[in-house]
């Protein structure tokens, strides 16, 4: 084994989460310096709410990326979940079960098609989900005829904006729940093991008797489900639906996962890191919004910061 390989292995053995959380803390301190009231309870609650939306999408994305794929259709699925649930809810609480089932079904079906195409037709995930994204975009437009309708019901609004549980809206607790489930899935279950194995070496996985097909399909279904549900939760935030509700989730979810130490080449990483990555991104966005600088410098700063984090943390190592 070469020296280089050894080094990279030692590096890989070290828990990468440690680093992400260090960066998160540094980030929070910097924010505090720039905007003294940044760490106030209200702002933290706001940032956590934003993180919850991104975090739930990133949860699915984490699973997909561990299997060495990338899901580019999440943003369109969030939008579809958004417009669909708004329409099904039509402002009434009694419609919540119908809306939930409808949205969940759509997410699951899209995930199923993604997974089937990727596994059975051997289409690279990037291409499959890119194509699926385009199809979903068309579906959203045809479904809404370009004019989204419907409203959030009071209960959904309470879920996202209410303060039944102290200063934190309940959606944060949904996120925590999702986080626990995902972490449990990855760490403690056979399914989680299979996800890692499929990402590390698909051929060996088949030959070890791992149900590669169902694992892959399941991962995309989970990702689809979580994205669509995020779309539904967003209705609670926006009160109504929008045609570009999900646009930002594509890049941000990937960035959150990668910052969290999960390699795009698969087989490694976990959701604990992604949580930190998610919060970092939301803090960054929030900070850039508050500080009064022109839009172009915001973009430049955002890009540079993401790059710097990736470079500094060195979470990625070269893969041959």
């Amino acid at each position, binding site marked *: 084994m070469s020296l280089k390989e050894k080094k990279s292995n030692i590096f890989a053995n070290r828990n990468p989460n440690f680093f992400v959380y260090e960066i998160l803390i540094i980030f929070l301190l910097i924010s505090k310096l720039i*905007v003294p*009231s940044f760490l106030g309870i209200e702002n933290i609650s706001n940032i956590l709410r*934003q993180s919850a939306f991104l975090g739930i999408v990133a949860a699915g994305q984490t699973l997909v990326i561990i299997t060495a794929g990338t899901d580019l259709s999440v943003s369109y699925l969030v939008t579809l979940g958004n417009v669909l649930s708004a329409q099904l809810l039509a402002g009434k609480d009694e419609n919540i079960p119908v809306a939930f089932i409808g949205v969940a079904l759509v997410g699951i079906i899209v995930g199923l098609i993604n997974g089937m195409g990727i596994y059975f037709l051997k289409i690279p995930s990037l291409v499959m989900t890119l194509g699926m994204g385009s199809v979903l975009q068309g579906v959203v437009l045809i479904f809404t*005829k370009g*004019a989204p309708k419907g409203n959030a019901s009071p209960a959904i609004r309470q879920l996202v904006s209410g303060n039944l549980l102290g200063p934190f809206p309940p959606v944060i607790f949904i996120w925590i729940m999702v986080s626990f489930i995902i972490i449990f899935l990855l760490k403690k279950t056979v399914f989680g093991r299979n996800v890692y194995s499929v990402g590390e070496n698909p051929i060996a996985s088949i030959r070890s008797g791992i149900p590669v097909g169902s694992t892959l399909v399941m991962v995309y279904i989970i990702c689809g489900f979580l994205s669509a549900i995020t779309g539904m939760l967003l209705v609670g*935030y926006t009160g*109504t639906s929008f045609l570009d509700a999900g646009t930002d989730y594509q890049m941000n979810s990937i960035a959150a996962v990668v910052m969290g130490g999960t390699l795009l080449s698969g087989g490694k990483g976990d959701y604990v890191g992604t949580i930190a990555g998610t919060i970092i991104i939301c803090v960054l966005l929030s900070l850039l919004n508050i500080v009064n600088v022109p839009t172009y410098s915001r973009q430049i700063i955002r890009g540079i910061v993401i790059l710097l984090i990736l470079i500094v943390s060195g979470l990625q190592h070269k893969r041959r």
Partner: protein
Amino acid sequence: MKNIKRILMVALILCIILLIGACGKSTKENDESLKDSKDSQDSGSNYVVGFCNYTVSNSWQTQMEAEFKYACERLIEEGVLSKYYITNADGDANKQISDFKDLMTKKCDAIIITAASASALSPVCEEAVDEGIVVVSFDSLVDTSEITGKVSCNDVEFGEIGAQFIADSIGGKGKIAMLDGIAGSTCSEGRTEGAMNIFNKYPDIEIVNQTNADWDYAKAKVVVEGLLNSGIELDAIWSQGGAMTQAAVDAFNEAGKSLIPMSGEASNGFLKVWKENLDNGFSSICPGYPTYISEVALEQAIRALNGETIEDLYVLPSGSIGDEDIDDYYNPELPDSYWVITHLTDEQVKEIFK
């Protein structure tokens, strides 16, 4: 496994065939309309018109496109038109150029265009005019004088109306935040320019934050929440989009802060929030930006085709909706994304928004 592959392949091929079938169907319909129009050829003039739209990414664009569609269908019944085409460039100036050329290929007699980029589309428009095609640009105008006509609803004026309202209601003094549309778009920059024209007259007005929230509710809400939590005391918000103002109002209410003057846009959703909060002392203004601008452009084009001379620049009168006019415009039965300044009948609106 091979079987599953086969099935999937067959499914895919079926999808493609269905799609092509859909295309075929629509051509047939067009052919029929062509036939109809041929029957009535002696009575009317049978123009073919094209609408080169640059995006339908929001409901304003959709409704504007629908106005065009209904107007065209009316004109087909009247025998003035025989056929119409609509293209959508998805915000891509290069694609719009190629869409425009496709419309020329289809031998449109007149093309109305709302451009993705002011100057990008000028060359093709000039080319079309050279070929004798009537070209009318509207809303997002092309940057050339060599076209048949322009129909505009002034973005700068839009910005000015909102800004003047803000300046008046805070007495020309205070801290304000500005919510802009998509960075780099003509519309957003025009409205911002208008606002700045006014704000620059008031040295005591301090702009503490200016953010591109992309006319998006969620983004605007994040921005306003951030501002509220950062400890900045705002006196007013200038917003150039209905959804953004709606988001700002919601954010204030959720944070339990008292509402401040904000400018808005004539979307049903914003009118709803506005109306609900009138009692809380909320005051706003909606500059008019009608969706029927496409219909006006079409009418101008038809007039030009009929040999009439038309104005080089036809400016739609900008009105505005004030606190007292809400009930005239607000329609509680329709969704938030409906735009209230329209020529569509209630039935037509309901068909789109059902």
